[in-house]
């Protein structure tokens, strides 16, 4: 299964890189979807089936669609995103910061003994029933808080987006 890890990782990294570098916004979103699917595949690989499915359901099914709609509502629908931004100071500084951060993080990770920990294999089995029980037993307050947050976000998003329409 090592090969699976490398393939999926390559897909995810490719998706992420394309998502933030492509010129066309819609292509960016499609690449982002690739990235999301890669992450979901990683979850499946890590035997967190439920999370993987949730990832597809929420990110691919909802968030990506939401972003697409936002592009449709804000931009020219062809999604072409202005002149090239490469090679500016902004680009170089941003890329440098990100690269430095990645290198430093890698160093930090490798300096820790945890980095060489090998997987638990079949012992790590996610049980949906267990997650469900934990959600409504020990974490019910968090669950309710999330519910309220989502409701508030729903209403807030509608209010923010509708405001100007009502004025005019």
């Amino acid at each position, binding site marked *: 299964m090592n090969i699976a890890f490398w393939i999926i990782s390559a897909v995810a990294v490719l998706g992420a890189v394309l998502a933030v570098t492509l010129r066309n916004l819609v292509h960016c979103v499609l690449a982002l979807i690739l990235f999301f699917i890669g992450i979901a595949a990683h979850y499946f690989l890590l035997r967190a089936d439920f999370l993987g499915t949730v990832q597809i359901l929420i990110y691919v099914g909802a968030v990506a669609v939401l972003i697409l709609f936002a592009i449709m509502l804000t931009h020219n629908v062809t999604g072409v995103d202005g002149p090239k931004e490469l090679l500016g100071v*902004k680009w170089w500084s*941003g890329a440098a*910061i990100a690269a430095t*951060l990645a290198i*430093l993080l890698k160093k930090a990770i490798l300096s820790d003994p945890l980095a060489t920990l090998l997987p638990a294999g079949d012992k790590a089995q996610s049980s949906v029933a267990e997650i469900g029980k934990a959600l409504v037993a020990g974490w019910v307050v968090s669950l309710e808080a999330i519910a309220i947050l989502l409701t508030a976000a729903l209403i807030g998003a509608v209010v923010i987006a509708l405001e100007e329409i009502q004025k005019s």
Partner: protein
Amino acid sequence: MDHLHKLARQQWLIPAIPLAAAAIQSLLPRSAKKLSAGLCLMAMGISCLFALRAFFATLGHAEVVRAVWNFTWFDYGTVSFKLGFILDPLTAAMAAMVTFVGFWIFVNATGYMHDDENFTRFFCFLSLFAAAMLGLVVSNNILLLFMCWELVGLCSYLLIGFWFHKPSAAAACKKAFITTRIGDVGFFLGILMLFWKTGTLNLYTAEGTGALQRVGELLGPGWFGWSVATTIAVLLFIGAMGKSAQFPLHVWLPDAMEGPTPVSALIHAATMVAAGVFMVGRMFPLFIAGGSLEHPTFAMDMVLYVGAFTALFSATIAVAQFDIKRVLAYSTCSQLGFMVMALGAGGLVPGQFHLLTHAFFKALLFLGSGCVIIGTHHEQDMRKMGGLRKYMPITFVCYLIGMLALAGVPPFAGFFSKDEVLLVTFQRSKLAWGMATFAAFLTAFYMTRQMFMVFAGKWRGGDHGAAHGHGGHEPHEVPWNMWLPIAVLSLFAIGLGFFGGKYAHYLGAEEEELSGKALVMGLSVTVGTLGILLGWFLYGRKPLAHASDPDPLESKLGGLFTCLNRKWYVDEFYEATIIRATMVGGTLFRVIDKRLVDGILHSIVWIVRGISQVCRWVGDEFFINGGFDAGCQTVRGSGWLMSKLQSGRVQNYFRILGLGTIILLVVYFLK
């Protein structure tokens, strides 16, 4: 007892059902009148069945039974907040009364509010109120009680101001809310102190660790030289004074009559105003802790005299009112005074018993007045009524029963309970007893006055008909859904008194032989009869002929009558003292702030400026400036740099964030 514990676990259903109904009703469209009323009545009916089941389960035990069910609300660190529900005779009787009376009041309201376009909203509020009130009754936790207490206050606010387009109603609801809130400050302080001292807010627990089970620990010194228990009790009683309209916080109750009449019956006669009395009863161990009959605590004295004074004071005002509902409102104040007084005299049982009987007959009277108001096409001035006996026979009979009960005529419920109250007061304080007896006399008198003005003589509504444009209508009997509730309630107003003796045992008082029973009873019957006779003498012999005729009593009493009619000028007194004082204080402080403080400030500024001028002339220009200017340049330069950071560009902030993380990591490695 197992059965009781099972029932205690289900106590939460009693408030939950109306709450669910309210939740559904709040979503209904305006046109769903029947559905809304049906839901409301159904919820109340089911609640009533539950309450009655609980009530009958508490009957027939040899001693006082008490079952509680506590559960953890949430944990905060090591402290766990618990809530709980209780089932004991006090709760059971109160819950049964509230649900039963409430149900019939709701039935009446379907008739009274029939043509109102906000019918659905009204019933939604009613359901919510019922839920809050029942929650208050069944809670075993002072915090839950307080929450429900505030919620009934809110509902009262909403319902008094139901016709908020009337300025008087809007003012009245604000007044009610704010006045009770003054009392609630005391209440909340009491709760805080209780929690501080005992570390729990649960009243009873099965293990005996509840706050009320440990009052023995609260006898240490508190404020003003009282014991802790007394301090808490006094603070709590301040809350009760606000809610139960005791002098001097009684002013909101008469104004609250701006609300629809079923609201007056439900909230301002039967249930919410009694919540204060109920709360005192619930917290009774705190009030009596550390005292005895001979040496009562300050809290008990305070309760006693506040109650007695309110009883008398309100009764005198009721004598001179012309608005049919205001008479009843002051009467309610006065009767609440009786209950409070009884509690203050140590008589938990008479106080609660009077609460129950009063709830029935006062709800009856209010609903009756509602019927009268509907029957006379929204007329509330008693001078413009008269002769309604002919037009509204059913209402008349029921109203008469209610009036006799309130006046304390022997076979009716009011006689028994009031007699108990007077008797227990007689043991404690002759002064209070005297005041109460005089108040009883006045009660009989003003009720007789009202009866004669409203029902006797001839119809005087036509006098002003031309002016109002609708006065030409004859009064008429109300529909069945309005008279049926008062008929049912009048049955209880007749019969409930006979259970008084059992009730005492039920609430757990020892059977003790009280002295002066014959004297008190005889005197109370006598003053009642005298009051009725006086009423007949003044109003019955020669009823008012025209709406504009002067009141017979007015000619006898003269200026005093005006004074009574204006409620002893209490509102004016508040206006002139507290409100004016606040305004004056505000103005004063503003003036002080502007003149004095600013003046001082300005003079200091002038002085400093003068000194600085001198300094500048002396050496500044020559010595300091040279170096200082260079420093200034540096500061300006750095400020310019810093302002570049605050560019408003999100990504710059982001970038700095990233850089910061990198620096942190670098520091981590170099460490």
